[in-house]
């Protein structure tokens, strides 16, 4: 198949260019493609438009691309955990487009599904609706939102096989399967590369067709953002 690459840098080789759009899986720091983000950082590619629910934290996740000023614009639903983001945004160095989380998820899915636009009730009557087409269906008002297709999608999966089939783990799934469909090229990092035929065909979250390149990562950091515990009684 030729989909397996030895390193994240090799998996991205030839795919990166200044001014490109990248859609990334992950929610907060959960399920983010940390190895691919690091390799994009090392590549020095600039003027990126990044589509991701969050912007990482200072020094980890997409935060590293912000610190190195490689990001020109973010499309996100929540960016509250990142001081460097705030500084760049308030100084006008960084462009920001907010999309409600569900609208963002659906826009990414739509892009991957060949749907250029869809109507949603989310955001009607708010700032988000300004400048967008309004349309009534059965007496209710909806706004038109557009699909997102990126030059590159980067995702993090738990298990993958050499065909490119992917399985995600628990809430690390989040935006990853949607992002995987919305890249002109999709690159996945996995925690385990499993023998062919060992994934349950009924339980594959991302079918092989979506994944063009795949890398087995080592020593994932998988940082926890909010460590909350309960007392043992």
């Amino acid at each position, binding site marked *: 198949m030729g989909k397996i690459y030895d390193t994240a840098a090799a998996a991205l080789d030839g795919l990166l260019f200044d001014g490109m759009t990248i859609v990334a899986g992950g929610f907060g*720091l959960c399920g983010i493609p940390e190895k691919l983000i690091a390799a994009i950082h090392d590549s020095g590619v600039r003027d990126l438009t990044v589509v991701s629910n969050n912007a990482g934290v200072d020094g980890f996740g997409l935060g590293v691309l912000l610190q190195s000023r490689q990001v020109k614009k973010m499309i996100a639903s929540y960016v509250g955990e990142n001081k460097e983001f705030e500084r760049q945004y308030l100084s006008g160095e960084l462009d920001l487009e907010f999309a409600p*989380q569900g609208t963002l998820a659906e826009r990414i899915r739509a892009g991957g599904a060949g749907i250029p636009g869809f109507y949603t009730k989310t955001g009607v009557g708010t700032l988000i609706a300004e400048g967008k087409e309004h349309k009534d269906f059965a007496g209710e008002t909806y706004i038109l939102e557009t699909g997102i297709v990126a030059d590159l999608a980067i995702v993090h999966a738990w298990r993958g096989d050499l065909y490119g089939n992917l399985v995600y*783990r*628990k809430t690390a799934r989040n935006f990853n399967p949607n992002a995987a469909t919305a890249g002109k090229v999709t690159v996945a990092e996995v925690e385990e590369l499993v023998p062919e035929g060992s994934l349950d065909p009924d339980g594959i979250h991302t079918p092989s067709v979506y994944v063009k390149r795949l890398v087995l990562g080592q020593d994932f950091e998988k940082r926890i953002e909010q460590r909350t515990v309960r007392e043992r009684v």
Partner: protein
Amino acid sequence: MGWTRDEMAARAAAELHDGFYVNLGIGMPTLVANHIAPGIDITLQSENGMLGMGPFPFAGDEDPDLVNAGKQTITELRRTSYFSSADSFAMIRGGKMDLSILGAMEVAANGDLANWMIPGKMVKGMGGAMDLVAGAKRIVVLMDHNDKAGGQKFRDRCTLPLTGSNVVDVLITDLAVFERADRKGAPFRLVETAPGIGLDDLRARTGANFSE
């Protein structure tokens, strides 16, 4: 004077009926999970992609792949399922959540809700709040009745940018509970007041008209 945060959460828990599927917003609403009555079976959704959210893990059992919408470590239950963000919000937008409990900066007499931005201050983003208010069957808001300077937060009109227009069904503050019968023009009605809160005092501290 007035209810504590835990008392407010306990009052909100009374809105949960057996068999409900519920999404609890970040902050005070998460406390509601501690007050669910015995015999009331509730399934909690977390909009990052989980149905059947369990309590926080014991120390040492934290799993970086298992967090809620507030990015807090949590646990799963025997009923749990995981799904993608698009599927999660299909569930929310599609009206499958019986109830969502959210925090607020302002609520208006017409049911408008503002809880995501203050112009001139850094904006963190709306996350899933706009989707939740647009999609859940019933919206319960938990907020302080007045801001720290004593300003009115339950108002005739919201002054802050909206999260949703005509979406709040129940408002629980530290002073009182208000509810409206429908989203077609019914006014908010005072359901109960916290111990020691008089009606004149409440009206003085409230910008919105409400019926009794």
